[in-house]
């Protein structure tokens, strides 16, 4: 209960709400300057997200990978690590699931699908663990190694898809076997052919796992202790090195799972792509929006997903050009992410005093914004 109350203590409820309103207002000013009707644009956004069963389903589909990568980045933040490599772990998760989903034949669904999920998650986790090992054994800054590993992951997966599972004459892999599919057919039918899969349920389980692992186990206590102050944790007898490694691995598993469901649930194939989809980077924003708390990350991913999916409606229905739509979305995220600014507005004489307590959260936002 205390945790719950902590998220909903007064100042914390006000800050995101005011931030969203300020962001919407700022976006409205931008649209007004551009000569567009802000009110109809925002109602178009809302209409696009909630207008039909199809749109609701597709919004959930948009939220799912954001939630996974948000959890991934948030988990690493809690242990004092900035996992900018969620993007690479996401891609490796996709690749692992794609190859297992295509190459294994003749297995029943109940065996094949879980194997594909587990392999994808593990590949993502191991990819995260590479940065973890480098950090814990040699002190290599995880930001640098992760950025490099992102590129390696992208090109390695393109290479693997092209050499192992390429559909002839196409720019993508073959279709995965039906036995590996995690799409939920009846739910898609019920949602007017929106792409529904098991991802959101697993993501919600991961939200719970995130919470239990960090706040209800000894292991999680150690991870958080390392995150607050690695030196103090070491003096207290905590194995800092293995904690760093573990947290990167778990973080990688979360991101990898995001990739797994993108392949097995949404696309059923993997595309050879020149650039990553960017879910890992969106995940950083989601984690920061959510203050690295599982519930916060869930809410952050919903906000981010709604804005992402709904922005097409602003373009389509209200005729706002995509460039302005992106500025508006940027404004909203900017205000939501700048806690300190809003706090200063609310209470100019006591800036940031109370937020000091949040430790890892602050570390996170400092890293992300500064």
């Amino acid at each position, binding site marked *: 209960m205390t945790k719950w109350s902590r998220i909903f203590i*007064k*100042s914390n409820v*006000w800050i995101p709400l*005011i931030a969203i*309103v*300020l962001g*919407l*207002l700022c976006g*409205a*000013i931008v*649209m*007004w300057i*551009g*000569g*567009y*009707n*802000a*009110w*109809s644009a*925002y109602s178009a956004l809302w209409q696009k997200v909630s207008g*039909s069963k*199809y749109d609701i389903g*597709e919004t959930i*589909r*948009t939220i799912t990978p954001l939630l996974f990568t948000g959890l991934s980045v948030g988990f690493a933040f809690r242990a004092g690590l900035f996992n900018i490599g969620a993007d690479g772990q996401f891609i490796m998760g996709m690749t692992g699931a794609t190859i297992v989903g295509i190459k294994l034949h003749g297995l029943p669904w109940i065996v094949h699908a879980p194997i594909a999920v587990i392999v994808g998650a593990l590949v993502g986790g191991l990819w995260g663990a590479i940065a973890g090992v480098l950090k814990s054994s040699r002190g290599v800054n995880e930001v640098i190694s992760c950025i490099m590993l992102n590129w390696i992951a992208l*090109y390695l997966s*393109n290479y693997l898809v*092209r050499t192992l599972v390429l559909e002839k*004459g*196409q*720019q*993508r892999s073959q279709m995965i076997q039906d036995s590996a599919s995690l799409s939920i057919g009846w739910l898609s039918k019920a949602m007017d*052919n929106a*792409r529904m899969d098991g991802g959101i349920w697993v993501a919600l389980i991961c939200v719970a796992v995130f919470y239990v692992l960090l706040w209800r186990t000894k292991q999680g206590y150690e991870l958080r202790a390392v995150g607050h102050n690695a030196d103090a944790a070491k003096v207290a007898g905590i194995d800092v090195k293995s904690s760093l490694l573990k947290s990167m691995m778990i973080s990688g598993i979360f991101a990898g799972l995001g990739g797994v469901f*993108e392949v097995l649930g*949404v*696309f059923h*194939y993997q*595309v*050879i*792509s*020149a*650039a990553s*989809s*960017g879910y890992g980077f969106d995940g950083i924003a989601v984690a920061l929006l959510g203050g690295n708390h599982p519930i916060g990350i869930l809410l952050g991913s919903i906000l981010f997903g709604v804005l*992402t*999916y709904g922005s*097409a*409606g602003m*373009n*389509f229905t*209200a*005729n706002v*050009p*995509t*460039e302005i739509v992106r500025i508006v979305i940027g404004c909203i995220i900017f205000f939501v992410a700048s806690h300190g600014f809003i706090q200063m*507005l*609310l*209470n100019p004489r*006591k800036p940031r005093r109370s937020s000091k307590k949040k430790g890892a959260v602050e570390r996170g936002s400092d890293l992300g914004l500064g």
Partner: protein
Amino acid sequence: MKKAGMKSASLVLTLIVSLVLILSACGKSGGNNGAASPSAGSSASESPGASPSESASASPSAAPVDGKGKKIGMVTDVGGVNDKSFNQQAWEALQRIGKDTGAEVKYLESKKDADYETNLNQFVKGGYDLTWGIGFLFQDAAKKIADQNPNAKLAVIDTTVDAPNVESVTFKENEGSFLVGVVAGLTTKTNKIGFVGGMQLPVIKKFEAGFKAGVAAVNPNATVTANYVGDFSKPDLGKLAAATLYDAGNDIIFHAAGGSGNGVFNEAKDRLKAGNQVWVIGVDKDQAIEFGDDVTLTSMMKKVDQAVYTVTQDLLNGKFQGGLTNAKELGLAEGGVGLPEKNPNVPQDVLDKVEEYKQKIISGEIKVPTE
């Protein structure tokens, strides 16, 4: 302290809410002006590329079609509508349709691969008369949406979809590339020719294969070296690849690398400034217009705009041709690919040779390989 915080918070909120209301009221009057044209940005870029193809595409049916009340939609791939490549060409064609026929045209940009389906659906469910999907990756999305909405009409560029309500347009890039290969083979002084590709995809391989065959047909002693940069939007990588090829003695480079190809032109210009005349062969449209005649030998034009214009016009005339059997594959015979009309850097005897090979390809005497 807490009370004060609450008070100021509610004050701020009231202020904001009232401001939002005022502003959105202001916006209402201004909004209608902007509603007619979704994007003003592309009108500026329309003028250089539009003129040559306009005359070409207007010819099939000169009488203006009345498209009033018809709605045409277009979904870009992740390149976006200002990609200086097929998305932009297609959108320019649709804008001309809008101007010529009075039809309502609109586009949606895809930010991620997952957006293809939802964006197509937006148009289809919005009752659009035709929805374009631009690019190779629309195959699966267009197939799915077409099957789910048998009454909707769709069209795709660069891929073939097996559905009765989808019209597919692909190009024989290998044939056009063969002709620029002929130009390169006859122009090279070092007998070394380079090719810079975006990514190793089947469609880019078609450019390379046709180009190599064209060079080999007229100059068996020349070698063609291919270099893939792995990206369609990185001019720095294109410049690097071009530098490597020019350093190795290649004096002509054909690029099929989208935005990365801008770097190839850049490198050629740098070398020209240093006193070395090297050549680039452009792609998709007449790139001499953008990069100048001093380095652009010629271009392999792929007339996406013309195809989009013609198919859309046909639809407005009630002549929509969906299904696999009606899939269009535009080559030299159909005028879908080829050299620009003006080639100031290519001597007449070379152009005569090009024309000779063009006729041989059209007559079927020469089969151009695709991979």
